[in-house]
């Protein structure tokens, strides 16, 4: 029982880190600009397809595709933000939802047209395929890598937001956009950079996700639900909140599937409802 609990915690934490990478960007941009970007999962899906394409068709090593997935998702997000999204910042929430859900449909159709509807296999390097056992718990190398990557990203994000002038400007803009503008902060530029970074992280998350959850054109919709759950449970514009929520939800999901297979993924929704009844603004949210 204890051994299986250790395994569930480890696998759940690894899965949670995947959810964290996929969702943290949306949390920050939603909190900063009140822009509901349901297309966030599409950037994750793009990252996955970039990795698959670079590995299968161009023979790139897996690790080299990760920064490429980040850059591709970030670059596409800048294009979409400049061409489409920025025009609806002042629009109502329904307009934003309709616009971005439309982008998701287009991305799903585009992915199906280019790569087909089948699952995309990915061949991990040999050094990621093994595992070792410690205190009866099996630790897969790839999941350790996933956890390590997410922790490094978390540290970089926290350091960037807490200890740099740009980070302080982003936090100031989240606190009070009008005042930030009135004091000389280019809020639009800060948002565009943050949006690109957040989308890039989703791309990285999508790339890392393939080996754990697979990749097909439904990815953008399937993980949109998880991403929204993480953001609502963690609270808007909170890296710590997203980290905590992703951890709790990742472990809940794996534990639910392991101990109560009949319930499937139901436990994750139960946790969400419980947390939001306790703290409607999320674990670390302020509004």
């Amino acid at each position, binding site marked *: 029982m204890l051994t299986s609990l250790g395994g569930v915690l480890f696998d759940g934490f690894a899965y949670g880190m995947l959810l964290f990478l996929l969702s943290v960007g949306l949390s920050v941009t939603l909190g900063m600009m009140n822009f509901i970007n349901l297309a966030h999962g599409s950037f994750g899906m793009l990252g996955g397809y970039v990795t698959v394409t670079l590995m299968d068709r161009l023979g790139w090593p897996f690790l080299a595709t990760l920064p490429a997935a980040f850059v591709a998702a970030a670059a596409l997000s800048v294009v979409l933000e400049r061409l489409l999204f920025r025009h609806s910042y002042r629009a109502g929430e329904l307009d934003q939802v309709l616009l971005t859900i439309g982008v998701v449909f287009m991305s799903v159709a585009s992915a199906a047209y280019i790569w087909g509807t089948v699952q995309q296999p990915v061949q991990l390097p040999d050094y990621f395929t093994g595992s070792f056992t410690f205190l009866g718990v099996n630790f897969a190398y790839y999941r350790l890598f996933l956890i390590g990557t997410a922790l490094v990203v978390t540290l970089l994000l926290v350091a960037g937001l807490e200890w740099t002038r740009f980070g302080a*400007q982003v*936090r100031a803009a*989240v*606190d009070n956009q*009008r005042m930030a*503008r*009135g*004091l*000389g902060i280019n809020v639009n530029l800060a948002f565009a950079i943050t949006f690109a970074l957040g989308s890039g992280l989703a791309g990285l998350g999508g790339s890392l996700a393939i080996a754990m959850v697979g990749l097909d054109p439904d990815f953008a919709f399937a993980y949109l639900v998880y991403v929204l759950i993480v953001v609502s449970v963690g609270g808007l514009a909170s890296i710590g909140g997203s980290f905590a929520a992703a951890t709790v939800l990742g472990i809940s999901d794996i534990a639910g599937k392991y101990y109560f297979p009949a319930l499937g993924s139901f436990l994750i929704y139960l946790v969400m409802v419980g947390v939001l009844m306790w703290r409607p603004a999320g674990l670390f949210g302020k509004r």
Partner: protein
Amino acid sequence: MADTLLELKGVRAGYGDAVVLDDVSLEVPAGESVAVLGRNGVGKSTLLLTIMGFTELRRGSILWQGEDITYLAPHLRARRGLGWVAQEREIFPSLSVEENLTVTARPGRWSVKAAFELFPRLAERRLARGNQLSGGEQQMLAIARALTTNPRLLLLDEPLEGLAPIIVEELARVIRRMTADEGTTVVLVEQHAEIALGLTEHAVVLERGSIVHRARSRELLANAALLDRYIGLKLPEAAGA
């Protein structure tokens, strides 16, 4: 005569369909200070928001050192040298006192160190978050934050509102130092008309969104009848004489 720093020409502005300011023209020469007076709701704060670019301007133009900034984005106006202390202080609550100052600081006379010397209380609270400050401390921080942007013109929107008398005295001392000693150009919107007139050289009175009276502050302070008529301020006999 000093160069004109800011000039509003026939400005008509408001929010959405509502027009708040109508045909407002105002010149603010460099190094001088102007009090904007008027009863509640006449458009004093809207005037400052319009200068900063936060309202919908329907007619007229705004010039900054001769440059037309009518359609310039607010952050670019701030970088040109417009400093703004908002009516509700609007401190960044999740930033520390020091971060509130450094986040928009620009090079110049007013460094963060100089701001802490001006307000020693803020130096003592430098690590406190914005939302942990008292009203008086928040107002000190709002003024210090605007100063560290090293503006050429400081727009102060009711900086003394709702503060304890001792804090009002301290802030009035700071504003006097800025206007009289430092030569900072200031536009001061203030409900405390007596204090505002004592701190500034010129005054304009707004009524229903339009400027209805212009005078030297000293002269207006001596005109009890005008102050009563436009602002509802009843001065004691000695002051009004």
